[in-house]
């Protein structure tokens, strides 16, 4: 009873110990972590039943003899590869500097092992080279504008697909190739700056000209409107004055025509008042109406008091 208990516990402890060693590929147990791919090879022959390709995380077994059975571990994750900028000639003879990166991963561990016996670094170099070649090819068939703006996405997708195709036999899958920077050569950049400057200058001139023209137009419009106002007012004023003159003439005429003879008399008197001035010498006979009383007085008639002096 006691021995059974001890035995069970010791076995359990052994199991735990073997599992622990399994992370390092030692012993009969192999533990594959989530970010790992492991190839278990018996006598370097993947076909033998003792060999296995572990693409899923978990526990597996191997023949625990060191040289005969070996375990190779690879990184299962997406790999980021930054490529050095490269200068490429485009179809329209521009020479931009292209900076890109690659996202790749291992799709077929066995093929990968066969293609790159020296491991991930060797594979990365190869991926870089293949992708660079595709970049050069695809961009060489495009114009600079297509690369930078219009067909950017399309070009990147094409490069990724072609690279993926090229590397398929090596067990590598290229998920994405992205251009993160396109640098124009110095001369092109200078030309672009010159053109930008000219364009801005043109725009500045246009704005200032617009301001001038509009300002002039507003002023001229205001002047014209002012003139119209004054002219119309003058016209109306003349009409009004005319109305006044006409109406007053009519009133006079109406009144005067009622007593035409009397008007004649009164008007003549007014004329005398106005025209006879200091320079005038009047020669009057004494029987002039004005002096009527003088005559009458001489004849001895005194009616009303004489004219006041």
């Amino acid at each position, binding site marked *: 009873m006691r021995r059974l208990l001890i035995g069970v*516990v010791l076995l359990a402890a052994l199991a735990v110990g073997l599992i622990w060693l399994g992370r390092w590929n030692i012993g009969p147990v192999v533990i594959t972590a989530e970010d790992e791919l492991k190839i278990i090879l018996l006598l370097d022959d993947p076909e033998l039943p003792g060999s296995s390709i572990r693409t899923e995380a978990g526990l597996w077994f191997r023949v625990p003899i060191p040289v005969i059975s070996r375990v190779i571990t690879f990184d299962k994750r997406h790999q980021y590869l930054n490529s050095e900028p490269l200068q490429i000639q485009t179809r329209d003879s521009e020479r931009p500097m292209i900076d890109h990166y690659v996202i790749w991963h291992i799709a077929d561990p066995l093929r990968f092992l066969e293609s790159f016996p020296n491991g991930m670094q060797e594979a990365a170099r190869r991926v870089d080279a293949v992708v660079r070649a595709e970049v050069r090819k695809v961009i060489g068939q495009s114009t600079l504008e297509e690369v930078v703006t219009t067909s950017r996405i399309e070009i990147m997708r094409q490069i990724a697909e072609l690279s993926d195709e090229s590397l398929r036999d090596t067990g590598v899958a290229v998920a994405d190739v992205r251009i993160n920077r396109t640098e124009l050569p110095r001369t092109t950049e200078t030309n672009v700056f010159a053109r930008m400057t000219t364009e801005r200058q043109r725009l500045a001139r246009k704005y200032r000209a617009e301001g001038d023209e509009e300002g002039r137009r507003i002023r001229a419009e205001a002047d014209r409107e002012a003139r119209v106002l004054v002219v119309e*007012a003058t016209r109306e004023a003349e009409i*009004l004055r005319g109305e006044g003159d006409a109406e007053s003439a009519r009133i006079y005429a109406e009144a005067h025509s009622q007593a035409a003879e009397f008007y004649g008399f009164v008007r003549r008197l007014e004329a005398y008042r106005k025209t006879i001035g200091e320079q005038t010498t009047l020669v009057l006979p004494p029987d002039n109406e004005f002096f009527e009383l003088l005559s009458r007085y001489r004849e001895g008639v005194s009616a009303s008091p004489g004219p006041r002096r």
Partner: protein
Amino acid sequence: MAEESRGVGRLLMGATLILVLIGGIAAWLSLGFYQLPPGRSAVVLRLGAHVYDEPNPGLRWHWPPPIETHEIIEVAKLNMEVFGYRADSAAEPSEQERVEAAMQTSDNNIVHVSFVVQYRIKDAFASRYQLADPLDTLRDAAQASLRDVVGRNTIDDVLSEKRGVVEDESAEILQNVLDDYQSGLQIDAVELQDVQPPPAVRAAFDDVLAAFQDRNRAMNEAEGYANEVLPAARARAIEAVASARGYRDATIAEATGKAARFSALAGEYVKEPEVVRTRLFLETMEEVLPRVNTVIMEPGTGVLPYLPLERSRGDGR
């Protein structure tokens, strides 16, 4: 007696053994405890395989290693990556910074952009176990997506109106790309800090703004002129008309008055013609004669009239 003591001894050994075994097991189990600080997640693997993420802070436990292992990832922390250079910073931008900031627009212009990306880890497991270099990947992918968006807009859009649109679009593209790579990263924001035309052309760009100001100023000045001229003209117009109206009314009133006076006088004349006549005549003469040289002469007296007509001052009758 010795048999009994051996029996007790064995019992004791047995008990001790059991205690030791239990202690060992307990000790081993206690290795499964771990402390999870707040703002972090523990990614738990069982025999290498992912079983769950533990989000709740405090004292936690899983089956002790090597059965289950864990890794602690900071998930709540807001991270920031900076790109390009700031125009207002004291130092001149380095060649590297300048190159990083230069982007081409859809109308073949170059603009210098500095921006930041704010991100968090949204999937702790993915951020550790799906993508090998998340940070480097994020940096390059961010540049690529911003250039993508800038390349589809004109320089004027990027400099002013569409900054928000550019930010949102590139954040969206970046998020999609990072999700495709299963990065487990969450992009909170892409923010444009400085968007400037390149230094070589900055003067020309500034001049356009100045020209726009000039244009507005010219128009405003003209408006000001119009606002002076028109009211003045209106005032003159109103005045002219009012004055004419006044003249008209006054003239008519005067005429009406004078006509009334005449008619009244005429009425008197009709009643007493001689009286009125005489009165009016005498009044006129009263007014006129003092002003003039008057000579009264009897006609037919036979005196040869000699009239020194040059002398006209009132000194003789």
